[in-house]
């Protein structure tokens, strides 16, 4: 074919016409995109009009940091203090359909610098939520709750005592994302704006387990922890009970009670090796963890190459693995529970025979500074206590600490029972028990409390550390 023939051929004509159409269409769209561009300011004005139905003024834009942007399973995009004293927060909730998100504006009520409930929730946008057209005003009205109605509860599709149930039948995953967004906004308000402390999870994988309603039985003699775990709802997988036995950190038995999927057909799709526990039995914490990946706070499934778990019941399969993960990851914590650890920032202890020697640092207990304390416990009783140089702020207050506390003589011979009677924690603030009878009220109360706390930690955890860390010939693990 010559060049002339090519230019006269149907192929060239087709190519030219198609290219022309594409170029004209592209040009048209480019021009229209510029003409119809919606700026961020315009979007915000629209949202304000939708939320407040009229004029509303932003008093202050709240600065977001990397620390406070992420809230649970949601993310904060914008936060403003409005002229009515309430806060307007845009939050994106994760965990929607097909791993997508939902973004909403939440008006969080603020009265006298206190949380005053959720005043309004308005939809903004979504990613991959195909059923978004099912969500009308009635759905978002479910989030409007007073502070007393919420009272520490979070929004969820789950109906339990600790949640406020939000329902949109047939679109439960998008509903979950919406709940996560609103929960993130409320959490942001409480922690970043009001400055409330976040109660961190004590155990690994705790968010998937209702620990309060679970039964966990440790047996130090046989190094066994027996769990009956009340597993929470995970995505669309329902709540169920997992019975797991872990011996020396390895799963020896695994079974479940109740329904692990929304219906029998989905339960049937869960791999047999997961249902009978054979995939999990014999595995330790690291091996179970290898079945799971955690991304941005979301735990997703990583499938082992040798197990066919690629079924249509991913959430149910994942929930079974999470029970095993919780049981193995927290094995040491449950078998060897450590008490009075909240105020101890460093613990380097050694075990020799029946003696445990602790080198401890107690957290700053303002105005008392962080204090270093060395405690030697033999046969369950305090043998000696050595207090570091810096025990008060300013140093002059060190003179007010009782001599017996400073040189440790006050504690010698005291047991776990004696020390436990002297310690109490009051609303997150360390406070020793009534010191009057002990004649320790000397004008340096906080420093005294810190030292008492260190000694209580040493004596009360003596048996645990002796069992856990002593050489094998003394009955320990090693």
């Amino acid at each position, binding site marked *: 074919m010559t060049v002339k023939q090519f230019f006269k051929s149907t192929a060239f004509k087709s190519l030219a016409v198609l290219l022309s159409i594409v170029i004209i269409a592209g040009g048209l769209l480019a021009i229209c995109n510029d003409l119809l561009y919606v700026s961020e300011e315009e979007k915000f004005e*629209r949202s304000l009009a939708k939320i407040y139905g009229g004029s509303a003024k932003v008093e202050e834009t709240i600065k977001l940091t990397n620390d406070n942007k992420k809230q649970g399973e949601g993310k904060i995009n914008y936060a403003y203090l409005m002229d009515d004293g309430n806060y307007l927060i845009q939050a994106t909730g994760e965990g929607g359909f097909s791993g997508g998100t939902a973004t909403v504006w939440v008006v969080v009520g603020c009265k006298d610098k206190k949380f005053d409930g959720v005043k309004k929730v308005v939809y903004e946008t979504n990613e991959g939520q195909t059923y978004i*057209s*099912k969500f009308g005003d009635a759905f978002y009205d479910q989030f409007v709750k007073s502070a007393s109605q919420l009272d520490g509860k979070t929004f969820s599709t789950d109906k339990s005592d600790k949640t406020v149930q939000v329902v949109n039948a047939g679109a439960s995953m998008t509903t979950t994302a919406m709940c996560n967004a609103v929960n993130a906004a409320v959490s942001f308000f409480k922690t970043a704006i009001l400055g409330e402390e976040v109660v961190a999870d004590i155990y690994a994988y705790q968010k998937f387990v209702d620990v309060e309603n679970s039964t966990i039985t440790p047996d130090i003699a046989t190094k066994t922890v027996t769990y009956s775990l009340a597993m929470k709802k995970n995505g669309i997988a329902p709540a169920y009970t997992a019975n797991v036995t872990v011996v020396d950190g390895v799963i020896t038995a695994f079974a479940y009670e109740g329904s692990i999927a929304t219906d029998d057909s989905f339960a049937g799709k869960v791999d047999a090796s997961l249902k009978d526990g054979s995939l999990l039995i014999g595995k330790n914490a690291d091996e179970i963890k290898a079945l799971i990946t955690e991304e941005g706070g979301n735990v997703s499934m990583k499938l082992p190459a040798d197990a066919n778990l690629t079924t249509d019941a991913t959430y149910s399969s994942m929930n079974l693995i999470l029970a095993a993960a919780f049981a193995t990851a927290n094995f040491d914590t449950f078998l060897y529970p450590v008490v009075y650890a909240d105020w101890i920032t460093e613990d380097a202890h050694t075990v020799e025979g029946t003696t445990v020697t602790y080198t401890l640092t107690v957290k700053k207990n303002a105005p008392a500074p962080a204090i270093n304390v060395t405690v030697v416990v033999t046969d369950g009783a305090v043998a000696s206590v050595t207090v570091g140089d810096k025990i008060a702020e300013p140093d002059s207050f060190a003179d007010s600490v009782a001599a017996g506390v400073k040189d440790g003589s006050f504690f010698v011979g005291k047991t776990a029972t004696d020390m436990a009677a002297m310690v109490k924690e009051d609303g997150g603030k360390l406070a020793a028990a009534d010191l009057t009878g002990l004649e320790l009220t000397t004008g340096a109360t906080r420093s005294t409390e810190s030292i008492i706390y260190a000694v209580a930690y040493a004596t009360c955890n003596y048996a645990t550390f002796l069992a856990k860390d002593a050489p094998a010939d003394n009955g320990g693990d090693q």
Partner: protein
Amino acid sequence: MNKYGKITMDGLVTNNATFKLVLGTCATLGLSSSAMNGLGMGISVTIVLLLSNVVISLLRKVIPNTVRIPAFIVIIATMVTLLRMVLYKFMPDLYDSMGVFLPLIVVNCMILGRAEAFASKQPVLDSAVDGVATGLGFTVALTIMGIIREFFGSGSFFGMKLWDFTIGFFTNSAGAFFVYGICIALFILITDQVEKMLRARRAKALRIPDGLSPLPATEEGTEKEEA
């Protein structure tokens, strides 16, 4: 009935895309949960149908037969993208409520079907009328389904709350299929009855005795009779 009347009746009733040809089912089921959604989607599809039919009809002699389908798709996709931009700028609530179904108009077989079967062969005005009629047929169908589903599923009419009693079934997918099936059955029943009625009236007007066809006899038949 003149040419345009026939095209209009064809798009609205005789070949109604939703209830007769069962085209565009994805959007029909997904966006008929409320009357307003149905109406919004219907109007959007009508606009895209009108514009794409006009452009395709204008270009029908230019576009080679071998590349007609990709050319139609590019034209339809352009129209849909334009519509998205306009809706996002001027009607953001409707844009949000339509969600993923708005870009999915591109692959609505009804639009490509009309482009292929009608606009690529007919003059501009005919194609425009066909686009509007087919779109209106789709709009009416979606709005009717939306009214039924919203009435029973949410107890409201075009967003106005009528009662508190609701049947959740009507708002979910199964309810959509159920209402769709009922609507198709009723549509066929009504159109059949009307057709019978019209045929009877026509027969009466021609004074043809009962049992005889109103159609003229074929030449072959005449010859046989003569024989």
